């Protein structure tokens, strides 16, 4: 369970203060497939970053499974992310010198798992995202959709509680984007992992079981389907 309580986040651009989130409160249950929607500058990426423990808030509190993550220091947040969170980025952010296999397995290497387990889990997740036989290819020899599949595999391989996806289909054509969404939904159902993704694409919103709309740093609507 993720509890976001009255969260405030301000950014400073010179002398101007940009109020990105103005007291947002939200509860997300385990295993939800939730979309944070809104136009550019509405605060959706900021909210995702705060839940993902990669940004610091200016007010309010975020609790994940009873742990007050917003109170953690830098090292504890790194540790928390390492074990509990997966990330999918709009631009995939794969390491270009590593193969598909290595891009996924390095997440498990960070967890210092035995070599055999790393291999088993990596091959299994690559098979599940449809990249079997491509594990030795580098990102530059794969399509955008295939690269995003590696990113999904990388996010899921450690069995995280939560996967945060920032505009996961924004760089893909609509057909590939839909395939990626189907894959994410399938993984959500299979592993019961909470998926939170930001988007301003209506097709993506269609797939969400819950749609939270942000506008100007505040929740405009929270719709369950």
């Amino acid at each position, binding site marked *: 369970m993720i509890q976001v309580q009255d969260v405030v986040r301000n950014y400073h651009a010179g002398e101007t203060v940009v109020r990105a989130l103005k007291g947002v409160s939200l509860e997300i249950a385990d295993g939800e497939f939730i979309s944070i929607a809104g136009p550019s500058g509405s605060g959706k990426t900021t909210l995702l970053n705060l839940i993902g423990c990669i940004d610091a808030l200016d007010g309010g509190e975020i609790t994940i499974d009873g742990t007050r993550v917003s109170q953690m220091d830098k090292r504890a947040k790194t540790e928390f992310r390492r074990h509990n969170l997966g990330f999918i980025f709009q631009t995939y952010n794969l390491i270009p*010198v590593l193969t598909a296999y290595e891009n996924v397995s390095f997440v498990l290497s960070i967890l210092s798992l035995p070599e055999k387990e790393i291999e088993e889990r990596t091959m299994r997740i690559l098979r599940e995202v449809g990249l079997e036989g491509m594990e030795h290819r580098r990102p530059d020899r794969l399509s955008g959709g295939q690269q995003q599949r590696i990113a999904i595999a990388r996010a899921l391989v450690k069995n995280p509680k939560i996967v945060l996806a920032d505009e996961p289909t924004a760089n893909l054509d609509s057909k590939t984007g839909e395939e990626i969404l189907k894959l994410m939904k399938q993984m959500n159902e299979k592993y019961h992992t909470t998926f939170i993704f930001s988007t301003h694409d209506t097709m993506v919103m269609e797939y969400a079981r819950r749609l939270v709309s942000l506008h100007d740093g505040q929740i405009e609507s929270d719709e369950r389907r």
Partner: protein
Amino acid sequence: MKFIISLALKNLSRYRRRTLITAFAIAIGLMMFIVVDSVLIGVEAESMRNLRWYETSSARIMHEEYWEERLLKPLDISVEQPYEIISSLEQIGIPAAPRTTFAADMILYSDDFGEDGNMSVQVTAVDPDLDNTVFRFEETLIEGRFAEAGANELVIGSWFAEDIGAELGYWVTFVTRGRGGFYEAMDMQIVGIVNCPNPNVNRTLLMIPIDVADEYLGMEGTVTEINMAIPERSDISKEVARIAEMLDDSSQRVKVARWDELAQDYVALAETKRGGTSMILFMVFLIAAVGISNTMLMAIYERIRELGMMRALGMSDRAIQLSFMIEAGGIGLIGSITGVLLGVLGNIYMVNVGVDLGFLMRDLDMGYRIQSVMRGAWSPATLVVAFLFGTLLSMLVAYIPTRRALKMDIPSCLRHQ
């Protein structure tokens, strides 16, 4: 750890051109360091050897009070019964030769030199039979012969002869004050011209037989110095202490000075030059360090997003830092290996062939006792230092830009273009 090393190595090959260019810059810096250091060591060793072989000998015995007054070259403060001391030294296996040095006015005549003239000089009176057992002039004669005992004959340095237009058979007169202060004039005929590896000697040498000087100057068998050839591999300080102890038993008040005490001016100059050269070497390293730092800065800044992703996925700052430092160390390692190899190749040439700077040395006194060819010398310690320094410095200079990049917050890293 395996992943960190593997990532660092893969990034090295990913940016192959950058890796090679930076490694090449490091290699050139290290090669310069090795070669310059080698030449410096070689030139210094050769200068010191040429000082001992042609100027100071390994050590010198003189009257205790002469040391303080040595610049005035007084003849009345001299060593008595020098041949007794020489004989004692020979008994303990140390060749020795007497010399008397004195300041004089040298008069040149228009009959020989084309015009009359005079100049202040320093004349060295040597024992023709013993001098070559201590000094190494035997092979340096380029014209004529050495002066013979009892004859008014003079041997002159080749550059000195060139400068004053002297040739064999020319006559000169030395006017000086003998022991006791009387004025004396000595007519000497040039019978030999020497050219030795020590430019200072070639510029100033005027050598006459010691028995002739003894008679003219009224030395009564005394000499101003006894020079000794202590075997090259011996510990000169220990030998000097041993000789001083031996001479303590005699009735004479003498001092034994090592060659480096006698050549204090050169030693001080060499130390100053060493300081200056260290500065040049430091600059070479600074340039290499700035080069690596700049390369790593670029490498890090173009991978900020990748860095942000790794941090978001839970990789610790320390692990990321280590990965970049290993990468930089890899560049340093390639550069260091290449640099040491190039340095060794350059050194093979410098040690065996060297650089002929004779055209420069003839008219420019750099203080070094090298006449023309500057040769290098092998220094394994320099190779090790260059290798370690190149590798470790590369790692060190990567630390600061990585640290700065890691201070950025993760969302900024992920947004970085």
